[in-house]
């Protein structure tokens, strides 16, 4: 047990924590509060100026306009799809890295997974735009099978987002698999379990919290994204685009729209917290 802090050490602690705490409250939570506050303001329809009159019209419009509901649902579906795809891709990849590959190969593989994170976001998104385009490699690769590439649209958005956020899923899953003691796998085999049974009964329960932890990233990053959809989304509209286009026209409406992903993410965090995912972050 650490000793109770003396008044001197408590002062030092306060001095040490004050600047970051101030930054957190003012810059971070403060801006979020102002954002939510401005959602209750209005816009003069002639001048597009913000009018500081308290009302809930924006939220009313948000909830009653079908197009907003459609876009919100589409955004949510894409975020869920990206998360599921990343989980399905990350599990075998992380398993190979942590359990199949020799110790010598682990670090290079880890670097290979991390390297794309260092490349610019736009570079990667535009690279996919080229690949998914009319004469792109994706179409060319599928052509011999009589298939067509997905072109620009919702599918393309899902593919590119899944690609962009995959490392955020691989890393926690890899860490969980590496922590899993070899003894557990041996004990399972020793008691008669084949590879599949061991995977289902021993490995998956051990990595479940890590998958949830990774999904926090893939899910929230997908919800907030609006550049990828502009680059490869064709006519697809997501919450991010709507917010971006409203910012200059109707700031309070944009603020009200921004509340949607915030609420969704808070709900999601509450859900995964129950699964113990946040303990491993």
């Amino acid at each position, binding site marked *: 047990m650490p000793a109770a802090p003396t008044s001197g050490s408590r002062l030092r602690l306060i001095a040490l924590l004050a600047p970051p705490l101030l930054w957190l409250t003012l810059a971070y939570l403060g801006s979020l509060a102002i954002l939510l506050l401005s959602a209750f303001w209005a816009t003069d329809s002639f001048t597009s100026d913000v009018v500081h009159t308290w009302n809930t019209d924006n939220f009313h419009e948000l909830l009653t306009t079908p197009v907003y509901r459609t876009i919100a649902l589409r955004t949510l579906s894409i975020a869920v799809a990206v998360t599921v795809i990343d989980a399905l891709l990350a599990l075998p990849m992380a398993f190979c890295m942590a359990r199949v590959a020799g110790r010598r190969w682990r670090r290079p593989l880890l670097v290979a997974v991390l390297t794309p994170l260092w490349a610019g976001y736009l570079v990667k998104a535009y690279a996919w735009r080229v690949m998914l385009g009319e004469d792109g490699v994706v179409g060319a690769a599928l052509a011999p099978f009589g298939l067509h590439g997905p072109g620009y649209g919702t599918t393309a958005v899902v593919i590119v987002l899944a690609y962009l956020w995959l490392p955020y899923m691989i890393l926690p899953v890899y860490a969980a698999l590496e922590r899993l003691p070899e003894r557990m796998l041996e004990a*399972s085999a*020793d*008691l008669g379990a084949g590879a599949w049974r061991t995977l289902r009964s021993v490995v998956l329960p*051990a990595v479940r919290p890590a998958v949830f932890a990774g999904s926090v990233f893939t899910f929230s990053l997908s919800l907030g994204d609006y550049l990828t959809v502009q680059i490869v989304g064709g006519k697809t509209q997501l919450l991010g685009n709507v917010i971006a286009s409203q910012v200059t026209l109707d700031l309070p409406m944009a603020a009200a729209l921004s509340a949607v992903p915030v609420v969704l993410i808070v709900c999601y965090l509450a859900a995964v917290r129950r699964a113990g995912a946040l303990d491993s972050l």
Partner: protein
Amino acid sequence: MAETETRTRTGTTTTRTAVRLEAVTKDFGTVRAVDAVDLTVREGEFFSLLGPSGSGKTTLLRLVAGFEQPTAGRIELAGDDVTATPPNRRDAHTVFQDYALFPQMSVEQNVAYALTVRGVRKAERLARAREALTTVRLDGFAARRPAELSGGQRQRVALARALVDRPAVLLLDEPLGALDLALRQEMQTELKELQRTTGITFLLVTHDQDEALTMSDRIAVVRDGRIEQTGPPVEVYERPATAFVAGFVGTTNLLRGEAAVRVVGRPGTYSIRPERILLTEPAEPPAEAVSSADGRRTVTGRVTDIVHAGAHTRFTIALPHGDRLTVLRQNLTGLPQSARPDGQIGLSWDEKDAFPVPS
């Protein structure tokens, strides 16, 4: 598994073998962990592999379990060649040193795992898991998680998990290593009892000679990937085949070369167990070692150290020419007058108790 039902129970003397290793060698890179080992464990036997850490005894166990593949040689379980059989198809279960319980499963699910894997119906599975938990005296713990148990309780869960479907062989890797002394001694008795009542062949790995001597029907002393001696505890203790065995199993006075000639009276390497040496009143004047007509050997020495260890006392005696002997004495009766630090004291032992060991 049909063959588990027809297995002979305790009491029936049987010479069938449960485990057989033939010229088994295991290399890890350039290191030879197991070197051409031949080993036979009889059915229903409590067999211990005793050796210092790094002697290759755990590797031997892992080879039998199937976690390691031998570089050369042949492994048999109940007469069947299992050299290339994966662990999940061998009729042997392991109790791991760190227990390796599945943390996300309840005690009951852990214990029932072997049955779950084989697709045993739920009702039967649970009944047999409870039964196994009763055997290790853990009734009422079925719903707990491993993290909520003490070390001793986890140990019992690991035992129940490995015994639940009555494997032909139970492999125990330093199972009592993590327990405190009192619990360890209690578990020694219990393990032996469990082995007797179930009739399952136990193959135990330990570095603790007490453990091996107390529980085993037979012991194999392992050193540097080879077996130095195999035999019942009494034989290994009383008639060690090598100087290493004499020193590792129990404490002993090893006398070599010049010292052997001076103390034992013959050239070679000799072992005298410290409890076989009697303390007597010293001869006057102090004498070097001599043999007497009744087949005893006596010598006078100086007490340099006395350690009182509860039931017995350990004396260190310096002989003329600087040889030292350790003497263990049960604290039954009063000591000779001179049994005090720096006192002159007589030592006497039966000449047969100084037995030669190949060095």
